[in-house]
């Protein structure tokens, strides 16, 4: 009987064969924290251990509110600076032009690698599955404990196999696929599970698109989400892998799955997730015409160069009709936008282009909504109050749909402007 990806990755880390349902304790390859490293450090100090188990395995990336927008945030950042200096944590991305949204930086900088066990004190840590890593989000206490002990327990998850064939039609992208999938299986459709993406449509995708898919694994309750570590991944990590502990692992053909689903990419249409849940799917035909007050192109889900190129192609030479906030996922992406003239395109179209970071995604920074306002966003959550105000409304969509909507001032079908 074959094994799933999760069984292989956790078995490799545990040093013995494992099957779904078993509880294993493993040593994480990398532990990622963002601005919440400060409260975690305080909890860590309460444990009473002097030093973190392996400083080289800990990564801090400031992204939730950078540069600090209040003295409270500034104090939080300062605590992280002091803690990383004291503990010798060299992988610290401070307020400079070297960082960005934590998950993007983890991938760009070669931390996300096939077969590694990666934990992060952020629920979207599952993004690194695009590189074939077993990666998952955990809470603050658990991260503090991991720093102290170098260990974390997992119940080996059952797996959901999603096979995608065919190819996207123009105006459709990975975001539409993942919103469709979550709409179908709902917010708890993959609770506790490992989601594996298989099939020719996945293989045809860029790593950026795979990151969009894996990023939203958590939105269906998954423990992790993963794509095959194929030649594209191996090429992407060449010369930048931060460790050689990695190994390209993938599920056996005869692995046993709790559930299997198949999609034809050609059947997917542009869509949105309506307020206030990610699984509140609506095809674009149903949603278009909804007036909006703000468009947001950003977040760890959809702000890579591929996403911004797609949006810029729609915005070029035109004027946005609503305030449009563009936040590249990282400074590398920002730099690439400059080189390709996209920053100019966005500025000329009337957008705000801020420094990379999480922006308004979780109600902390640039672009908070007022009561009664509606935003169309490329981010991953549209929960009530998510962007800072409980009486506002968030629609999730692809970069193409967000750009098309920004031009019209209402939710629009990107196929009509392409």
């Amino acid at each position, binding site marked *: 009987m074959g094994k799933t990806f999760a069984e292989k990755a956790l078995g490799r880390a545990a040093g013995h064969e494992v099957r779904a349902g078993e509880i294993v304790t493993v040593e994480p390859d990398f532990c990622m924290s963002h601005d919440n490293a400060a409260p975690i450090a305080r909890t860590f100090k309460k444990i009473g251990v002097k030093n973190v188990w392996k400083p080289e395995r800990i990564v801090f990336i400031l992204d939730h*509110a*950078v*540069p*600090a*927008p*209040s*003295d409270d*945030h*500034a*104090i939080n*950042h*300062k605590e992280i600076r002091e803690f990383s200096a004291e503990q010798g944590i060299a992988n610290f991305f*401070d*307020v*400079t*032009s*070297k960082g960005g949204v934590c998950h993007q930086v983890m991938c760009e900088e070669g931390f996300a690698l096939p077969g590694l066990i990666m934990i992060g004190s952020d629920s979207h840590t599952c993004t690194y599955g695009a590189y074939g890593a077993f990666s998952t989000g955990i809470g603050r206490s658990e991260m503090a404990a991991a720093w102290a002990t170098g260990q974390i327990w997992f119940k080996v998850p059952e797996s959901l196999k999603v096979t995608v064939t065919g190819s996207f039609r123009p105006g459709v992208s990975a975001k539409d696929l993942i919103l469709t999938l979550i709409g179908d299986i709902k917010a708890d459709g993959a609770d506790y599970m490992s989601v594996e993406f298989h099939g020719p449509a996945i293989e045809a995708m860029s790593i950026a698109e795979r990151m969009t898919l894996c990023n939203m694994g958590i939105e269906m309750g998954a423990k992790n989400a993963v794509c095959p570590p194929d030649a594209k991944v191996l090429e992407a990590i060449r010369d930048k892998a931060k460790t050689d502990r990695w190994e390209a692992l993938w599920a056996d053909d005869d692995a046993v799955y709790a559930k299997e689903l198949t999609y034809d990419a050609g059947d997917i249409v542009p869509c949105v997730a309506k307020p206030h849940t990610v699984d509140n799917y609506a095809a674009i035909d149903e949603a278009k015409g909804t007036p909006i007050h703000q468009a947001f192109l950003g977040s760890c889900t959809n702000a890579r160069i591929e996403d911004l190129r797609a949006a810029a192609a729609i915005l070029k030479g035109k004027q946005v009709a609503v*305030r*449009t*906030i563009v936040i590249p996922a990282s*400074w590398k992406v*920002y*730099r690439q936008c*400059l*080189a390709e003239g996209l*920053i*100019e395109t966005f*500025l*000329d179209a*009337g*957008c*705000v*282009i*801020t*420094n990379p970071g999480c*922006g*308004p995604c979780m*109600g*902390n*920074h*640039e*672009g*908070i*909504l*007022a*009561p*009664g*306002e509606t935003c169309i966003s490329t981010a991953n959550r549209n929960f009530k109050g998510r962007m*800072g*105000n409980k009486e506002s409304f968030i629609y999730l969509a692809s970069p193409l749909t967000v750009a098309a909507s920004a031009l019209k001032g209402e939710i629009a079908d990107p196929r009509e402007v392409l």
Partner: protein
Amino acid sequence: MGKTMIHKIIERSAGREVKVGDRVWCKIDLSTARDFGGANCVLQFQEVTDKKGKVWDPNKIAFTFDLQAPAHSEKVAVNQKIIRDFAREQGIEKVFDVNWGIGQHVLLEHGLVKPGDVILGTDSHMNLLGAVGAFATGVGNTDIVASWFEGTNWFRVPETMKITVTGRFARGVCMRDLLTKIVGDLGADGMFFKAVEFGGETIEAASLADRITLCSMVTEMSGKVGLIMPNGEVLDWLVERAGEEVRDRIKALAPDSDAVYSDDLHFDVDKLEPMASCPDAPDNVKTVREVAGNHVDQVHIGSCSNGRFEDIEAAYKVLEAGGFKVSPKVRTIITPATREVMRKCAAAGYIEKFLDAGIVFTNPTCSLCTAEHYGALPAGDVGVSTTNRNFIGKVGKGSHTYLMSPMSAMATAVRGVITDPRDILG
């Protein structure tokens, strides 16, 4: 008896002869409010008019969003919406939303400021518009609301202080340093309630950016407004933006040769050195040399005082001389004043070089001028900034700030400690 610029402006606006000390009612050419103060104005106007009031002239009202753009707190988001909704309802079209930049600069770039105009705004640095000969002044929300009824407000006709500047700046020294010196010499209340006319060869040769810098800091000496006669390239720029009418306006604005001034000061910049306002007051002035080597955690370049393209370019030149690298010991943040400035920085290839050097480049906004935007400081940190105030705790309780020129700020970023830019420029 001859008249100064401010007298001529007030007389034009009041429609009668005035003398120093008179309280007069003036016609307002433009009444503006920001995302800070703007919502207070709207709510107050609605309250006193029982929500039925109409503003006197929607074309003479403007809103700018710059204090926290885009909003990162719920309250500011709400305040911005209050303004947007009010503007729509009242037919006010001049709403410069979060994508434009610092208010006064955006108004200037849009040709909405003419020499001789009387302009109100909820920004104490509104008076930097004196750089093009406008009498603009910062006021509270009540003053703005009052102006919305009939387009008028009261002013006391101020005395005028004359400041003549001669000489040429040495390498590494600029208008900001002169200004810092003036603040140090005159003190925080050195221009108490007065208007100031800046003139002399140095001013006449100065760029618009430098004139803005100079006028912006009049606030820090408790002056009413600093005024400069537009000439040369500045005049051409202004005509291009605000129309030919500008030329007639300045003819009527020129001070009489026998105008009476309360003070007549002279500064020569030939031997001026880079200057710094040290913690925790703008008038606590020393030369940069005197504080060189001091510890710094963050450097910030931007604000309505020093966020124009020329300011950023001056900083760029220092970065270039320093090998396009800033010290990893400091966090360096650059904030352009407006979208137009940012666009120019992108086209010039500066942003790429800043990023390569490790510098954070933000969208146009007031940024670090409050503790509620990019670059707030934690207790114990020391900042260097090109903003205009270093009051204790202003950008974070228990933090301290040095105010300097963009060149000195960048030199500091390059070396990681307070540095005289001449040490890098050679």
